[in-house]
Each structure stands twice: as C-alpha cells, then as structure tokens.
C-alpha cells in the first residue's frame, strides 16, 4: 500500500462510514441548536454564536466544506495554541480545547 492510499475504494469507504458520519454531523447541528435556544450564562455573550468555543466549531465546519484535503490536520491546527515560547506558569491542569483569546 502506498502512503496516502486506502485498501478500500471510495464506495466501500462511504458504505462503511456514512451512517456514523451522518450521525456525528447531526450531533454537531443539534449541539448548535441546543446552545442557541438556551438562556445566556452570567458571563457569556448574549449571542450564543459569539462564544469563542462555538466560533471555533463554526470555523472548523468551514474547513470541512472547503474542498481541500487534510481537513483533520487543518482543524487541529486551527484549534492549536499558536504561541512559541513556554508559558511562565501552568494555567491549571486541564486544557480547554481551543486557545484562550488574548
């Protein structure tokens, strides 16, 4: 197998993965609906779509439909801390999923 190639053909891969991908795509849509119909939290923006985590999902969806390859890598890059130097101190133990806005 040459790197980048798959043993299965496109039709076989779609057959194998379509229902799971359909379900996960629907989950993303339902998550956005759920967030939009909820009342705002005390510190969050009034517009639910302005939350930086929700914005990160919406930006990633643009990557998903841009027709270019390497979508998974590019989404992970989009959600990565772009700074280069070590942090002065550990900001808690848990990562958040996307970088905090400066």
């Amino acid at each position, binding site marked *: 197998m040459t790197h980048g190639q*798959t*043993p299965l053909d496109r039709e076989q891969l779609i057959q194998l*993965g379509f229902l799971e991908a359909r379900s996960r795509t629907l989950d993303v849509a339902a998550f956005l609906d759920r967030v939009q119909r909820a009342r705002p939290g005390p510190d969050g923006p009034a517009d639910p779509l302005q939350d930086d985590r929700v914005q990160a999902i919406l930006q990633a969806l643009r990557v998903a439909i841009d027709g270019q390859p390497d979508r*998974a*890598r590019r989404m*992970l890059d989009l959600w990565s*801390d772009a700074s280069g130097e070590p*942090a002065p*101190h*550990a900001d808690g133990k848990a990562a958040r999923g996307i970088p905090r806005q400066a």
Partner: protein
Amino acid sequence: MYIDPHVHMVSRTTDDYARMAVAGCVAITEPAFWAGFDRGSPEGFHDYFRQLTESEPRRAAAYGIRHHAWICINPKESEDHAFAREVMGLIPQFLERPNVLGIGEIGLNRNSRTELAVFEEHLELAARFDTLVLVHTPHLEDKRKGTRLILDAIRNQGRLRPDRVLIDHVEEHTVRPVLDAGFWAGMTLYPDTKCTAARAVDIIEMHGTERLWINSAGDWGHSDPLAVPKAAAVMRARGHAVDAVRRITLENPRTFLGQSPRFSDAPLRPTAPDLGR
C-alpha cells in the same frame, strides 16, 4: 496476540485484566502518571512506584500478561520544581527493578517553563542511566506547541538516540514532525480526545506502519482498556492485511520495547481462578 504499550492498570479493575487476556493481550507497559489528584509527599510517589513494580506485575501475571513499568514524576505534578526534584531523587533506585523499562511518561502538560525544566532533567536521567524514554505530549490546544518544545528539548540535549524515544499521543498535526525526526510515535485511542480508531487507521494509511504503535492509555477517566483489539478490528474492516495489523499491534511495540533487555512478551501461564467465568 497484542501488546498494549501504554495502559494505567493501577486505575483499572481485575476484570479489565481478565478481558484483556481473553482479547489476546500478552504484555503491557504502564507509565507513571497523574492519578487524578496531587500526591502530597515524595513518600506518596515512593508507594506508587512500589505499586508499579511489585503489585501490578503480580496482578497481570495472574492473567498471563507480562507487566512492565516506566518511572517519573509526570508533568501535571511537576509545577513545584523543588518537589519534583525530591521525587526525581527516588527514580534511580526504581530503575533497577526487573520490570522497569525506562523513564516515562515525561513531557509537558500546559507547556510551562517549570514543566520544561523538569522534562529536561528527566532527559538527563535517561541519558545517564541509558534507558528508553516514553514521552507524553500535551492535550488539545497545547499539543502542537508542546510537541515542538519537546522535540527541540530532546534535540538540544543531544545524548538520546531518537530510536530509543517514543513520543506518545500523536495526532494528525503532530505525527509527521515526530517521525521525520527519527522518533517512534504512539497513537492513543480515546473516545473523546486524542485519536479514535478510525482516525488512527487514517494516520497509518497516510504515514505507513514504520515506528508507529497504538495504545489504549486506559486510566481512571473516559477510556477503554480494550481499545487496541477494537482498533485492530477496525483496521481489518478497512481492508488491511493481517500482517499489517500484527505489525502495529505486536511487532512494532516488541521492536521498540525490546531495546530493553527487561522487556518480554513470552507466553506466561495464567493462574487466575476466574478466567473461565
């Protein structure tokens, strides 16, 4: 037959050992890690290192599984540099234990200066005692930056051969720099973070099977100690030959870990009375 080269069995039940044995697990390696709360004293780590080197090998052996360990203070508990140094002072005595393969899982968590300094001191220990090294890369948004800092630190140290270092928890955005630098790369199969089985198989298809393994990193959080055999099934469903599955799940871990004379996946007779339950 398979090897799970990264699983935290101190956090798992005996039933998990039984299930892993039935699924074909013949050997595991267990890196020292953060057990979900901060230990308050070096003595707490001493007890944990004894658990990894005395108790867990016995639990595993009952199910015919060879148990090996890695020793360190993990980055989540190394922000207090003086405390970390006290714990690191305990490490050399445990490197002599018969199931210890090396230093791990060291690395970075939030990419802080102190974490990096403690990581560099662990690298010095590994070089001094000529051990294998297992490296944890950070989670989520911190992974790409942390992986770069880790690769730079190992390069700058200059005394560790890349083929004796495994960089774990790689994903699509970090696997290439790790392999290109000559290191081994581990993919961790988690339900929500790190890699799913399907994405791990994608990475194998994109980057090949050389110097790559998969592990469950099963622990006290949302994780699955049977993730490796389940991923093997996904790999087969995706059309990969039995030989390729065997390379990823057995031969590659055996090749890397076998650089330590203490590693073995030779058959071990299980003695647990509940195996046929």
